C-alpha cells in the first residue's frame, strides 16, 4: 500500500517538473509585449524599455525560468504586474470561489447521475431507460453557458429566487455566497450529469450481467441489495475514474460559467491574465491547476484501492 502511494507520488512529481518547463515555454512564447499592454499606444520606446527592465522582461529566458522555479520552491509566487498585488492572494481569493463551485457541480453530478444511471440500468430497455438516455442526450448537447443564461432568466430575472450573478464574499455574506453558487453549480454540472449517468448506466449493465449478481439473486437477496450492494459498488470504479477526469473539465468549464454569472473565480483570473499578459499569474495558476489535477488523480488512485482490492495486492 505504502509502496503503491510512493510510486504514484514520484510519478506525479516528475510530471510536475516537466509541466513547469512546458508551461514556461508556452507562456513565454505568447505573442504580445506585457509592457506595451500596460503602457498602451501612447507609450514612448524609452518608457517601454524602462518598464521591461523594471519587471525583468528583458532578462534571458533561462534566468527567468530559474527565477520562477526558485520562487515556486520557496513558496513565493511573486506579484502580479497587472494588479500590483501578490499572486498568492489573488489565487487564494479566486480559489475560494472556483473550488466550491467545482465541488458543488461535482457533488451535484454524482448525486444526480448515480441514481439516474442505476435506474436506467435497472429499467434497461424500457421507457424509463429511454427517458434517462434522452435526458443525457440533451444534457450533453446543451452548451453550459446557454443553460446558465436560461437559469438566470428563469430563477433570477423572472422569479428572483437566486441572484443573477456576482459573489458577495465568504466573510461578508456566507449564506449569500452559497446562494450565489447554486445556479452556476447547476449550469456547470449539467453536461457532467449526462456523461456520468451514461457511464454509471453502462457500468451497471456490465456488472448486472456478472455471475455474482446472478448468485446474489439466486440466494434470494432483495433487489435493492443486489443493485446497491453487489452491482453498484463494482460499477463505481469506472464512474470514479470518469468523475476524476471530469474534475479537470469542471475547472475549464468554470471559465465561461464564471463569466456568465460574474463570479470572480480562477477561470476569470486566467482569462484576464492572458489578456493582460500577466505572465507570472498565468504561469502560477496553470502550475497550480496541474498540481490540482495531479492531486485529484492521486485521490482517484487511492479511491480505487478502497473500492477494489486488486491494486493493493498488485502493490
Amino acid at each position: 500500500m505504502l509502496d503503491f502511494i510512493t510510486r504514484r507520488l514520484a510519478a506525479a512529481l516528475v510530471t510536475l517538473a516537466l509541466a513547469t518547463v512546458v508551461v514556461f515555454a508556452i507562456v513565454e512564447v505568447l505573442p504580445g509585449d506585457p509592457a506595451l499592454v500596460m503602457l498602451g499606444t501612447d507609450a514612448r520606446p524609452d518608457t517601454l524599455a524602462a518598464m521591461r527592465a523594471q519587471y525583468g522582461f528583458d532578462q534571458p529566458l533561462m534566468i527567468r525560468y530559474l527565477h520562477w522555479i526558485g520562487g515556486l520552491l520557496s513558496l513565493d509566487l511573486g506579484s502580479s504586474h497587472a494588479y500590483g498585488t501578490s499572486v498568492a492572494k489573488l489565487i487564494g481569493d479566486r480559489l475560494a470561489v472556483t473550488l466550491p463551485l467545482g465541488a458543488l457541480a461535482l457533488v451535484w453530478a454524482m448525486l444526480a447521475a448515480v441514481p439516474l444511471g442505476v435506474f436506467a440500468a435497472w429499467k434497461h430497455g424500457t421507457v424509463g431507460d429511454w427517458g434517462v438516455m434522452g435526458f443525457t442526450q440533451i444534457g450533453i448537447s446543451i452548451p453550459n453557458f446557454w443553460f446558465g443564461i436560461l437559469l438566470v432568466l428563469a430563477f433570477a430575472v423572472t422569479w428572483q429566487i437566486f441572484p443573477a450573478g456576482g459573489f458577495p464574499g465568504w466573510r461578508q455574506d456566507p449564506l449569500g455566497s452559497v446562494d450565489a453558487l447554486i445556479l452556476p453549480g447547476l449550469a456547470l454540472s449539467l453536461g457532467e450529469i449526462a456523461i456520468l449517468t451514461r457511464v454509471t448506466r453502462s457500468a451497471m449493465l456490465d456488472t448486472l450481467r456478472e455471475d455474482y449478481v446472478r448468485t446474489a439473486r439466486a440466494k434470494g437477496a432483495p433487489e435493492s441489495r443486489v443493485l446497491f450492494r453487489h452491482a453498484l459498488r463494482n460499477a463505481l470504479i469506472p464512474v470514479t475514474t470518469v468523475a476524476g477526469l471530469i474534475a479537470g473539465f469542471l475547472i475549464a468549464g468554470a471559465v465561461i460559467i464564471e463569466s456568465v454569472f460574474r463570479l470572480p473565480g480562477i477561470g476569470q483570473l486566467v482569462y484576464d491574465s492572458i489578456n493582460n499578459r500577466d505572465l507570472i499569474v498565468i504561469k502560477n495558476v496553470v502550475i497550480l491547476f496541474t498540481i490540482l489535477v495531479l492531486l485529484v488523480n492521486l485521490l482517484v488512485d487511492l479511491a480505487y484501492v478502497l473500492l477494489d482490492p486488486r491494486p493493493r495486492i498488485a502493490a
Partner: protein
Amino acid sequence: MSISRRHLMGAAGAFAVFPAFGPEAWAQAKDKVVIGISLEPPVLDPNKNAAAAIREITYQNIFESLARIDRTGAIIPGLAESWTISPDGLVYTFKLRSGVKFHDGEALDASVVKFAIDRLFAADSTVPAKSLYTDISTVEAVDPGTVKITLKSPNSYLLYNIALCDAAIQHPKSAATNDKHPVGTGAFMFKERKEGDSITLVKASTFRDAASIKLNTAIFKVVKDPSAQVSALLAGDVDTFPGFQAPELVERLKKDSRFAVVVGTTEGEVILATNNGKKPFDNLKVRQAMAHAINRSELIDAESGYGTPIGSHFAPHNKAYIDLTKTYPFDIAKGKALLAEAGHPNGFEAVLKLPPVGYAQRAGEVIVSQLGKIGIKVSIVQLQWPQWLSEVFKERNYDLSIVAHTEANDIDRYARDGYYWNYNSAEFKAKWREVLAATDFAKRDELLKDCQRIIARDAVNGYLYQLAKIGVWRKELQGMWENSPTPATDLTGVSWK
C-alpha cells in the same frame, strides 16, 4: 430523474429564505449606486497603466487635475481655480484652490503639484502618457498657492493635457502605493477592492465641498459578458452601465420602463486602419478606391444604428469638425475604375487583422463584403488585444485593421513618425506644428479643419463612424454623463431622485 428533481427543489427551497443581495438593494439605499463596468482596471493609478478603465473609475472621483474636463468636453478649473497663459504661449501660471486636502489629510500646495507634474516628463518616468508632457521644460512652485509651468515650445493642447486624468495631482507620500490604494483629492475615497469583482468608493470627508456630494457609496462592478450585463440590470444587481457595449441587446432594455437608455457621443473614431507603407496600400488610388467602396450606413446598421458617419479622423461634436464624408462618396464603379488605374483590374488579396472588440468584429464582416465588391478579397485574422498591440501597432505587420481611436484630439497621430499607419506627410506635419503653436483658438479651429481635409484627401485610413456612447441607468438616477468627452464616470453630480 425524480431524485435529481427533488434534490434541486430542496436546494431552491432552502436558499430562497436567505436574503438575496439583488432586487431590493437599490431601493433601500438611495445614497448608494452600483455602476457596471465591462473592463476591469488592472491597477488604479493612471500613471502606472494606460487602461481607460482606470480613468473611468478614478477621474474626478478619486483623482483631480489642475484643470478639469466637464460633461460637455469644456476645460474648466479643477484644483487650480484660475490660470493665465503668456502671450507667446510658453508660460502657464496656475493659481491653486485653497483648503484642498488629500484623503489621508495631507494638504495640497504648489510643491505637491510640482512633484506630480515633474514625474510626468522626468527622464526616467514610465508614465504611459509621458509623450503628452515632454514639451514641458520646468515646473516651479512660485509660492504655496501658485505654480508656473514653462514650455520648450508652444503647445495649444497643454491645458487639455493638464486636465486629463493622466495629469492627476498625486501626493509624494501616497504616489508609490496609489496603484493599489489610490489617495487623491476628489470627492470619493477608495475603500476596498475585490479583484475580479468590484471596487468600492465612499464619500470623502476631506473633500472641500462635501455637502454638495449626494452619494455616500459607489460600487464599480465588473461585468464583462454582455448578456450578463443585461441580466445584472434586469435583476437589479446593477443600477447603471454608463458605457453599455452590446448595441444588439439595447432593445430589450429600452422596453423596460425601469431604465433610461441614453445615446450620447464618444471620442472614438472607428477607422479601417490601413498600412500606408505597404504595397498596394502605398498607392493613393488604391486607398481612394477603398474609400469609394465603403458604405457607412451599412456599417452603422451593423451597430444596430448607433454611430455617426465620419469622413476624417475627427469627432462630429467637436467645434472644429467639418463633414468630409462626401470626399470619396460610396460608388462601386468609381472604386473599380480607380483600382484598375492603379494596376489592379482584378483586385488583390488582403488580410484584415481584428482586435477582440465588439464593434471591430461587427464591422469586420461588413468591410470584407464591401471591399469584395470592388474586387479586393479580404480574409479576417482574429487577434487577442496584446497580439494586436505587438503585431499591428508596434511591428506594423498588417494590411488592414479596424479599431476605434478613443482619445480626444488624436488627429495629431498623423504627424507622428513611425506611427502604425506609416503615413508620412510633410504637409500635415507642418500644419500640425501650426496647430500646436496657435494661441488663438479660433485660428486653431481653422487649422484643424485643414488637418481634416489633408487626411481625408489622402484617404490615409478608411473613416467609418464615430462610436456612440450607450448609457443605461435607472430612471431615478440623475446626473450621469450622457456623452463621453474623456474616459470618466464623474459621480460628483450624481444623485437619486
